[in-house]
């Protein structure tokens, strides 16, 4: 399977995330990475010209980075590919580069607005929309996992944002080691500790974001919330929101509740949970 990696407005963070994939060498035995701008000997423009000229096409086109609306070259390359993977929040939603420039977008979105560079109805050669692998950066398992799925002939089932459900159907909250604190509404009063839930004061987006960070872990060992950092929701279109370290509250309740939870239910449950929270969860421990 031939894979061509394209970079546009990017920090190359997805490339370095990809290079952390644990079985990188055996991956390269199974897929043919015909071009990667950070790794290959040729400059990107030359590789693109060759690919367009030889008309052999490419099975997988990976796009890293945000794009300009006028970028016809990227459109042409996407049309050439059987599958198109938008890797990272820049390629999916436009992300940071799009914040300061209205002419910059993602492949099929600009933040939550559908369309982007390729338009609403784009289908790649194999008849699939762009496969969006959001995240800043995307986890290596999401990138490689999707490539391997395609290699096995499995078509990934996509969610409403075009992301494979395999990786984006559970909340980042799943597998968080602070879940018991969340359950009993024991808030982290301070940063710098393994204890307490970061959802109430520190802006944690774990119950509001979709990713498998806390179940598969980063670099095989940890995750933001395990390291005491709130989840910033970097797999969602609104990353990076204003006030990333703060939970906006109305009348003492988080302004945004965990996905699917009603305000009434939340108030009732949290009252009871706080009242009966086990002592061992409270204080410094």
């Amino acid at each position: 399977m031939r894979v061509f990696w394209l970079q546009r407005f990017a920090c190359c963070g997805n490339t370095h995330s990809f290079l952390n994939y644990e079985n990188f060498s055996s991956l390269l035995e199974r897929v043919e990475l015909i071009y990667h701008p950070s790794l290959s000997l040729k400059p990107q423009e030359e590789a693109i010209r060759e690919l367009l000229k030889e008309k052999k096409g490419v099975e997988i086109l990976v796009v890293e980075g945000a794009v300009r609306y006028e970028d016809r070259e990227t459109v042409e390359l996407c049309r050439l590919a059987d599958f198109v993977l938008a890797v990272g929040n820049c390629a999916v939603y436009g992300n940071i580069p799009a914040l300061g420039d209205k002419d910059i977008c993602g492949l099929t979105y600009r933040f939550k607005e559908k369309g982007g560079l390729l338009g609403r109805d784009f289908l790649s050669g194999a008849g699939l929309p762009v496969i969006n692998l959001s995240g800043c950066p995307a986890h290596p398992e999401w990138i490689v996992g999707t490539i391997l799925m395609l290699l096995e002939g499995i078509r990934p089932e996509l969610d409403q944002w075009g992301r494979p459900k395999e990786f984006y159907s559970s909340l980042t909250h799943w597998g968080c080691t602070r879940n018991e604190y969340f359950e009993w509404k024991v808030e982290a009063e301070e940063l710098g500790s393994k204890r307490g839930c970061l959802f109430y004061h520190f802006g944690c987006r774990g119950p509001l974001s979709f990713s498998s960070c806390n179940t598969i872990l980063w670099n095989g060992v940890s995750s933001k919330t395990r390291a005491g950092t709130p989840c910033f929701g970097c797999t969602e279109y609104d990353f990076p929101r204003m006030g990333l370290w703060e939970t906006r509250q109305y009348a003492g309740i988080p302004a945004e509740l965990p996905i699917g939870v009603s305000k009434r239910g939340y108030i009732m449950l949290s009252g009871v949970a706080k009242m009966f929270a086990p002592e061992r969860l409270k204080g410094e421990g």
Partner: protein
Amino acid sequence: MKVENIELPRVEGEARLELSWKDGSIEDAKVCINSTRGIERVLLGRHYMDALVITPRVCGICGHAHLMASVSAIEDALHIEPTEKAKLVRRITQSLEVLQNHVKWFYLFVMPDFTLLEEKLKELYEPLKGKRWHMAIGVASKIAKGIALFSGQWPHSSYAIPGGITSEVSTRELTTLRQILIELKEFFLKYLVGMQEEDFVACFREGNWRGLGGDVRVFLELCHREGILEAGRSYDRLISGGQLYGLCGYFMNRVVHGRLKTGQIEELERVSYSGAKPVRYKGLPFETGPLARQLISGNPLIKSMHKELKDSFSVRVLARVLEIWSITEAIESWLERLKKVLRERSTSLGRFPSKAKGSGYGVVEAARGTLIHRLTIKDGIIQEYSIITPSQWNLGPRCESFLGVAERAMVGLKSPLHAQIVLRSFDLCSVCTTH
């Protein structure tokens, strides 16, 4: 005069080289980097804590350095002192990021050019195929794992906060990292310098750079054969502003000077062909990076090499490769200190002040050299933010009086490939240069 335009491969981002030829040698060189993402602008009007999430996104390979520069600038502005434990852990993870970058740079960015000069090197160093290329990826990602132990993930962690770090570090992180460092040292000795530890230490003490083996030797022999061992000299003025290990200061007129004054650092206006602003110290161009650090902190190997070859590109490359050893040893000593303060708190503050004001500098040593963040905060909101990256010093354009550092290093070379090899010794990161 012929002008040649070269699209550059293996750049973090995109860059072009414009060479002017006269009588078979390069008369002028321009490093053209255009795409800017305007990260400083995105920060304006946001709460200062947001900078800790946004500035790492300047660069995928050195984002941790940006995090450290941001948090230091905030602490400077708000007069916050982190705990001793947090300082040590931050130094450790920041240094680990430098290490993975050094390994990747040498094997993924420098050596592949040499396979174009010597067919038989392909077996080891060819991109995506070479044996050592694959090993280097494995080593680099192990180091990244070492960072993630403390910071939650790499790339793009935001675990450093005003007053400390968000993670509660315990013995597990310490002992696991120790194992990773042992493996890294083995890799360095076996492959990079190709010798036993005691022999390397002897070479190091004696400043015997010609005695080094391994991949370093392969590199030096090829430079010698190509006649470029002494190529790629620039101004021989070096600057190191942050503290990775050892000292900071600057090297000028063959003398190392102590502390530098941040007030003397100046960003000039952009020129037409580059999205980056030139940076000057005392009005002069300076090179920053491992060569500056190694020379200023007195590494005997680099001192003796520099004495012979000045700031040639080969010295620059060796300074960076050999820094892997110096940094690894420094991390080991910090781990010893960390053991003694493991029970200390991770942060001196716990909660960050939401309304605050002040201005501050954050100066750190990233893999490619001195990185400076400066910000002004009012009512907790960022009013000004400016970033000067190492690549701006090295790859930044000319001003009215001086060529950029890398530009000057390419003048007089006889082949476009040699020009690219020399340019790469500064490490081509266009995303940092223009940010």
